[in-house]
């Protein structure tokens, strides 16, 4: 048991180091109907997996007639290594960066000639309990589908924050539901009777987004867009309201809640199997309706009107984390 743990640690350490040397990896392809993957380079060793024909698998090293290979990580991130006999596989040419171009494999005919004399591997004995790996499982990293996130940054002209959930619906497509907060300081325009007075908009956006994600080994950039319902609140600069209040008037510029639209891009960077860093850019198109109201506290005379051409469109930039399940 202790030996197994040490071996596992060694394997993980090896694999983690090898993660960053993928440029010169070598692959072999299964050439028989079923190839047994063994725990040791011995035909007597236990079979730990059965690989169907044409499965491509990464070679860790070559030991005599045996290839030490590794399987893609399972959903929990565990990478399994084992041994395939050279008689059941053929080497595959891998396009790699010029600096790391591996030496060309020996002529297949020569190897084949040599290998034909080798005894065929024995038939597996415990096939029922041994997993079978499909060719698709050969991707470098499988991103979890469901995650939660929290991020903060700059939006409008102040602090922006958001949190929510994300779910990968299918390849390249994910949805995101988010709630957040940002504020915008408005300079106001007293020359336009339908414009806002100087003040501050605070809004809580409830956003739904469709993201086109391009999941790679550890990085998943995305672009996307969506619609949001914005719970807006506007407060006129207090010095203005105080001056009017002193003369017996209540004034209010109200920005209605309403729909807004957004588009943007971002990037998830996987720190571990469950945790990723998220960087998110959005442009929010927000043109809500609004009303102004002035009330004379003495006579209760009140006037109201529509605010026109309100435009709170803005960028948000936020950095956060995502935790996947």
């Amino acid at each position, binding site marked *: 048991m202790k030996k197994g743990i040490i071996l596992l640690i060694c394997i993980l350490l090896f694999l983690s180091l090898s993660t960053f040397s993928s440029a010169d990896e070598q692959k072999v392809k299964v050439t028989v109907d079923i190839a047994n993957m063994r725990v040791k380079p011995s035909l007597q060793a236990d079979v730990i997996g059965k690989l169907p024909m044409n499965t491509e698998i990464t070679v860790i090293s070559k030991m005599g007639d045996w290839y030490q290979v590794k399987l893609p990580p399972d959903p929990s991130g565990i990478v399994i290594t084992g041994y395939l006999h050279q008689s059941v596989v053929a080497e595959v040419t891998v396009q790699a960066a010029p600096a790391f171009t591996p030496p060309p494999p020996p002529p297949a005919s020569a190897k084949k000639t040599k290998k034909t004399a080798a005894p065929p591997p024995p038939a597996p004995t415990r096939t029922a309990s041994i997993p079978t790996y499909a060719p698709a499982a050969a991707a470098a990293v499988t991103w979890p589908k469901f995650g939660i996130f929290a991020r903060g940054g700059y939006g409008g002209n102040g602090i922006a924050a958001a949190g929510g959930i994300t779910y990968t619906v299918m390849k390249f497509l994910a949805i995101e539901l988010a709630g957040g907060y940002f504020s915008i300081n408005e300079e106001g325009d007293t020359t336009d*009777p339908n414009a806002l007075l100087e003040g501050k908009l605070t809004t809580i956006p409830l956003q739904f987004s469709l993201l086109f994600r391009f999941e790679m080994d550890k990085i998943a950039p995305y672009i996307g867009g969506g619609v949001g319902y914005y719970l807006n609140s506007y407060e006129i600069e207090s010095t203005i309201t105080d001056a*009017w209040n*002193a*003369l*017996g008037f209540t004034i209010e510029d109200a920005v209605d809640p309403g729909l807004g639209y957004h588009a943007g891009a971002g990037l998830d960077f996987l720190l571990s199997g469950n945790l990723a860093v998220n960087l998110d850019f959005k442009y929010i198109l927000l043109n809500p309706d609004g009303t102004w109201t*002035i009330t004379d506290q*003495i*006579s209760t*005379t009140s006037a109201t*009107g529509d605010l026109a051409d309100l435009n709170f469109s803005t960028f948000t930039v936020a950095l956060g984390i995502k935790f996947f399940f």
Partner: protein
Amino acid sequence: MKKNIKKITWISFIAIGALLIFFPNKARVQNEDFPFDPSFAQLKNLDERHPKIDHMLYMILQVYENSSLEHAKKIAKGMDVDFVGDDIRVVAVENRMPLPNGAKGSIPLTPQIQALGGAVETSYKDLYQSTIGLYALRSLSDLPSVGHVRLPYKPRELVVSEGVQNTGAGDWHSLTSYHSQGAKVCILDGGFTGYGALLGTELPSTVETRSFRADNNLETSVHGTACAEIVHDMAPDAQLGLVNFGTDVEHHNAVAWIISEGYQVVSYSMGWGYSLGPGTGSGPIHDDVEDFVDSGGVWVGAAGNSAEDHWQGNFSDPDSDGRLNFAVGSEWFGFRVYPFVPFIIWLRWNDWGDWNGTNFNTSRDYSDWDMRLYSAYGGGAYLWGAFGVQGQNRWAYEIISGWANFYASLSVTVNRWWDPNVGTREFDLEFWNCYGIEHPVAAGSVTLPGDSPDSLTVGAIDHATNAYHTYSSQGPTDDGRIKPDICAPAGVSTNTYGPALAAPPGLLSLFQLRPYGFYGTSAATPHVAGALGLILDKTGFSPIQAKDVVLNRLIEMGAAGKDNMFGAGRLNLRNN
């Protein structure tokens, strides 16, 4: 003996002094120094009436026919009657006649006036303001298309004085404007002399101007300039319109234009005599007020300065001699006039009928009362009278006007010509440019169209003490409504009338021999109009809502509740 001589001398001095004090003009009349142009007195048929020519105009026509054109023009000038060259300015009231072929419509009046050598200056509905030679006046009146011919009605500038009071408007000036659409305030007045020199300082840098006078002369008086100064002081960012007129016909056209230009507030420090309404808030000028208010605006009008120049009373004639008694034993109503200042006395009685938009011609008794002018307090020589014919289109009023060569004491009588219902008769007398009114009655002295229910009518109080200014006209109206609606400061400083100083005593104050401020309801009115302009300029309230804001911030004055001296209270824009 010596002692007796001394005693007699003293008695003589005292007697002569008393005569000079109490009967100054009697002495002068007896001295052949008659204060009036004697032309009227020379006329043989002073009391002659013309069925279609108003009496004052008819008197001028008689001077022309019995003397000369120059003489008639001289008389007319003293009575503030206009001549354009040798033609007199009149208003021909059209009598819409059916066309000869029986078709509906009327025979156009303009070519008929032109055929008589006259010219139509401007018209409004059935009123044709024209200039025509006196030689053709009878021919004009004889036209079947002419109902009657009269002199144009003219407004009076209500300049008495001015005052300054802090209404709290200054607290508003620094406010951030709250969704205001801007404010447009029109000063509708007699003239705006000198306004150009005040642009950018006492007035906004730019103003809209328009003259509806026949001569297009905007600068005929400084009165409107001073009013505009006050509106600008109150509402510095409001857009101002300076519009003037000279006659009732021009007034109608001016108000129609003001409405078309979208003005929200009219500041109206003008007033009309009793020839334009019974004091119940109706009449042709009142229709202009109503039209403006119906357009969504607020008409701010002066209450008038007649509280001390007015008499009101019921019919009383104990000796049944046909002469009205103004007080017990008093059939001659005494007053005094200034030298070389045209004076006017209006008589009005309560037989006008209901106003139908064109005429007062329903439910009338068709009573006919006249007015006679005498040369002294309590009687004296009969000078001339007002003998208008009250009929279908001739309303229940009479006017006497004239001028004197020096200070004079006069009196008038009111005489019955015909009245089938004398027991219900009520009378109003108003004296313009007169003083020393013998029996002043402040009640009911509101000047037209301040009696209009559509007018926000303004009385005057002192800017420093908030005390009632005794000249400020009082209600009620003849139909029992309280007027004024509001009071505002008078006695403020303007560039036009000078700094607010204590008024000089006595007669000097009335002549304004030195500038000492702008008094009168003329000064009070633009404060209220300016306050409305200020609210409109600072808020998104409509003009009617701005009026509500003003009326709910008034500081109550005088008797509890609304009263006929102060209205509902004094103008205040603060939060108290």
